[in-house]
């Protein structure tokens, strides 16, 4: 029996397996038969429901830890960010369902999305910083800072600057759409890279397992938001686009990460 088999509970394996199958079938159905399903129900409401489910599982994990423990604060912050994003998805789905058109940008949904983007970097930086006594943080900070700066420069030149300079849409809409790719890079992907480079030093150490999943999940949400902005700006986004499943993948990975965290922290076996 491998270490993972000994530590990961049947419940986590079941939820992870069933979730993966549902996610694959769900996205395959929407991709292969786009006209056969109500895309709003599948992608927009589906994303919101999955987001709230992830938030509930994350809250359960956060409350497993005692008051004053760092992990409780970290998971509570992730829970708050995912809840805000799920509210944003719900607001988006509500507007699309009632008006049969994409919501205005900026709209009520953006209040929740932006609030989530304020909380997620705080949580991710707290997680990375918590490893400072185990890992020399200079190299992870250097790598994450360098990659983030390089990508931010490229994105500024390729996407954000042309978006801001165009005169075919309102300035406030251009600023809102420019915020998401920039926030995705600087506020989410930068800290995600920092966490990944930091926990790579732990090798197969099980304390890193939940953060691999949560960090990649947060990265998937961030990349999806950036792609959504790009598609919306170019009038190429419709509900049910592949990008919707990027958000779902992100929520799913964070949810599984929260389940793995409980298993890792409650396992008594050390070898």
């Amino acid at each position, binding site marked *: 029996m491998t*270490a993972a088999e000994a530590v990961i509970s049947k419940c986590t394996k079941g939820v992870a397996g069933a979730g993966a199958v549902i996610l694959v079938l769900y996205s395959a159905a929407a991709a292969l038969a786009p006209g056969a399903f109500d895309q709003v129900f599948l992608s927009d409401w589906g994303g919101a429901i999955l987001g709230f489910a992830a938030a509930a599982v994350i809250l359960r994990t956060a409350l*497993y*830890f*005692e008051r004053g*423990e*760092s*992990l409780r604060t970290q998971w509570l912050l992730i829970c708050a960010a995912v809840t805000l994003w799920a509210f944003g998805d719900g607001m988006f789905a509500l507007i699309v369902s009632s008006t049969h058109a994409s919501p205005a940008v900026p709209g009520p949904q953006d209040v929740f999305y932006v609030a989530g983007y304020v909380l997620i970097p705080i949580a991710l930086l707290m997680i990375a*910083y*918590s*490893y*400072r*006594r*185990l*890992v020399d943080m200079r190299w992870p900070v250097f790598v994450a800072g360098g990659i983030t700066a390089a990508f931010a420069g490229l994105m500024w030149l390729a996407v954000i600057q042309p978006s801001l300079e165009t005169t075919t849409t309102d300035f406030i809409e251009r600023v809102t759409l420019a915020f998401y790719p920039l926030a995705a890079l600087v506020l989410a992907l930068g800290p995600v890279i920092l966490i990944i480079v930091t926990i790579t*030093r*732990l*090798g*197969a*150490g*099980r*304390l*890193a397992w939940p953060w691999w999943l949560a960090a990649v999940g947060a990265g998937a949400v961030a990349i999806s938001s950036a792609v959504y902005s790009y598609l919306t700006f170019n009038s190429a986004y419709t509900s049910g686009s592949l990008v919707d499943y990027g958000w779902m993948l992100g929520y799913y990975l964070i949810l599984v990460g929260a389940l793995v965290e409980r298993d*890792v*922290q*409650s396992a*008594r*076996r*050390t*070898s």
Partner: protein
Amino acid sequence: MGQLAEICVAALEPYIGRVVADTVVRATALSLGKPMDELCMTDLPALRKNIRRVLEPVAARTTIENIIRDIEVRVE
């Protein structure tokens, strides 16, 4: 590597990996002014204190106490 150092690294390894576990035990030994393979039973309180200090931000209290209990059981 001394026996106590080996036991500590073996107990920490599943949680933080071999390299970091080795670094934690080595750092404790250096703070006591001795090489890692000279750690002995009298150094156990210092090892316990350092393990609690480095793991406190990344692990639950129960997890840390399980690791320390595991070390004590293996030492006995």
